[in-house]
């Protein structure tokens, strides 16, 4: 009975109810929209980075710090015996890292040379294009961002200068044998992929590597104590941190949006209770207890949340699932803070996200609806019938 009366009252209030409900629904849809994009970004970026760079984890030379170019000179060593077997079986691949400079179009640019076995199958990089080549030229594989940044195209040559172990500099022409399209900036920007053997020869580091990438599901073997194992989770920590930071930002926005919606509900409730005192008195005269009147008004307020969920479902669900299907285009000049981003993010809108957010909104709406009704607890029927508060 209370529900029926509450529904009647809220629908009878017309535009006022729908406006409040619309504001809440907007908050609901925007929150689900954003959260879905964030989850999609996290999953997509994590998968791309694992596929193209991290594999089943990496085993690093202890001195290696990918953020510090100065460590590259010392961060190398003979590939541990325990890992050689995995490399031979094609379940791991060694990467040697060295600092270098190139001179595309007459300008110097500091780059990182990464040597990789052209026949490796551990990471999804088109390294097979590095096979072959001539003796006085180094085959080079470039990412699309790097090609764009340097103005280099397939077939171009570029001078590569690097420092040999004795301290002297050496130089050689590199020929761009292939360009790869990748969503992962950390295998692209400022990176020149070259054959591992050629880089080892250039740097006189035969049999050495900076890190070894394991294939997915390969567990690091024992006997590599002097090297440091980084699991995919360790390597994805930065992106997880970014996700967390973005989540906090999104949560702040959620709270702000929800507060706007709740302000509308609170305002409607306060007005409604003030305006309908006589009606409360009538309900009491008809046999309602004050508790029932409080429940009625709380229910009415909460129904704004239900209306919002219905409204949100009407316009939000088709919109969300359309975006889920076609993807959310990323601006071309957005590099994603060094994390893998495709041209599009495909948001993930799970039932848990939608139902959880809706339940949260309903719960908050119920609390906000209840707060103004506490005034009714002190209301005397005779005052209410006269349109007064006790």
């Amino acid at each position: 009975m209370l529900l029926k009366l509450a529904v009647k009252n809220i629908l009878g209030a017309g535009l006022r109810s729908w406006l409040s409900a619309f504001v809440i629904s907007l908050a609901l849809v925007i929150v689900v929209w954003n959260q879905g994009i964030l989850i999609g970004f996290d999953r997509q970026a994590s998968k791309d980075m694992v596929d193209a760079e991290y594999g089943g984890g990496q085993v690093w030379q202890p001195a290696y710090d990918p953020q510090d170019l100065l460590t590259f000179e010392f961060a190398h060593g003979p590939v541990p015996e325990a890992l050689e077997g995995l490399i031979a079986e094609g379940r791991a691949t060694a990467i040697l890292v060295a600092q270098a400079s190139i001179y595309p179009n007459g300008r110097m640019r500091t780059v990182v040379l990464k040597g990789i076995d052209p026949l490796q199958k551990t990471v999804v990089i088109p390294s097979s294009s590095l096979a072959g080549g001539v003796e006085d030229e180094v085959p080079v594989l470039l990412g699309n961002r790097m090609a764009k940044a340097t103005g280099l195209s397939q077939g171009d040559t570029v001078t590569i200068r690097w420092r040999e172990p004795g301290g002297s500099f050496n130089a050689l022409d590199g020929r761009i044998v292939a360009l790869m399209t990748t969503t992962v900036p950390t295998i692209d920007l400022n990176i020149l992929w070259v054959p591992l053997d050629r880089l080892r020869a250039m740097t006189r580091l035969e049999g050495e590597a900076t890190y070894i990438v394991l294939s997915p599901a390969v567990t690091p073997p024992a006997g590599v104590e002097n090297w440091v194992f980084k699991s995919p989770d360790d390597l994805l920590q930065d992106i997880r941190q970014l996700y967390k930071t973005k989540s906090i930002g999104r949560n702040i926005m959620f709270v702000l949006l929800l507060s706007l919606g709740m302000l509308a509900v609170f305002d409607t409730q306060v007005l409604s209770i003030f305006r309908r005192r006589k009606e409360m008195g009538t309900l009491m005269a008809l046999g309602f207890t004050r508790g029932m009147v409080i429940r009625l008004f709380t229910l009415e307020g909460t129904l704004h949340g239900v209306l919002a969920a219905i409204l949100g479902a009407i316009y939000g669900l088709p919109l969300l699932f359309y975006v889920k299907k076609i993807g959310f285009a990323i601006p071309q000049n957005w590099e994603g803070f060094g994390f893998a981003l495709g041209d599009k993010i495909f948001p993930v809108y799970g039932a848990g996200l939608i139902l959880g957010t809706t339940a949260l909104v309903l719960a908050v709406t119920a609390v906000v609806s209840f707060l103004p009704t506490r005034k009714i607890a002190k209301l005397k029927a005779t005052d209410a019938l006269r349109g007064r508060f006790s």
Partner: protein
Amino acid sequence: MENGVLVRTENLVKIYPLGHSQVRALNGVSLTVARGEFAGLVGPSGSGKTTLLNIVGSLDAPTGGSAEVLGRKVETLSHREAAALRNRYIGFIFQTFNLLPVYSAYENVEFALLLLGLSAAERKKAVWDALEWVGLTDRARSKPSQLSGGESQRVAIARAMVKRPALVLADEPTANLDAANSHHILDTMEKLNQELGTTFLFATHDQKVIDHLRRKIVLVDGKVTRDEPGPAAAGPAKP
């Protein structure tokens, strides 16, 4: 409570605080109302009519004295018990009709039955009967905003009568109506009183209502100054 007595008040006192002072709205009212009466509390504004009606209707509690309604002492009732008493046994008719604006005439009348736990079929029959008593079956689907003042008050009467209460309390029921509608309303209530035996207690200073009363209880400054047969006392006999 002895046979036939529906309402008994003894030395009833009601004091309202007003700033630092107090207003004595009822000052020792003692009276009884028997089953089937068509009586009215008559007096000028501020004489305590509505206050007495509210206490009898268990909407308010006395400051002193005793009010016994249908065998229950109002001053001892909890909120829940008072609500149950109103819901089951007392019908109210207000000056401003007090219909629920989002409900149709039918639903407004039905509303009084919802708390009684009747089946849908029982409610339907009772509502149509009540609308027929007041001659409004053709306006059953109309919302209060679509009804005239007279029609609204007839819906309010149907709402008060639909649960066949022992007692109907009517506070200035004709104050917002023109003369023709007032007479129509009063005729309807008189008919229900005679046909169903429902006790009616009015609070009024409207002469049109007074002319229909069979008992007139005059209140002045919170005291009963006269309790006499009303102008209609010589009319049709009570059932």
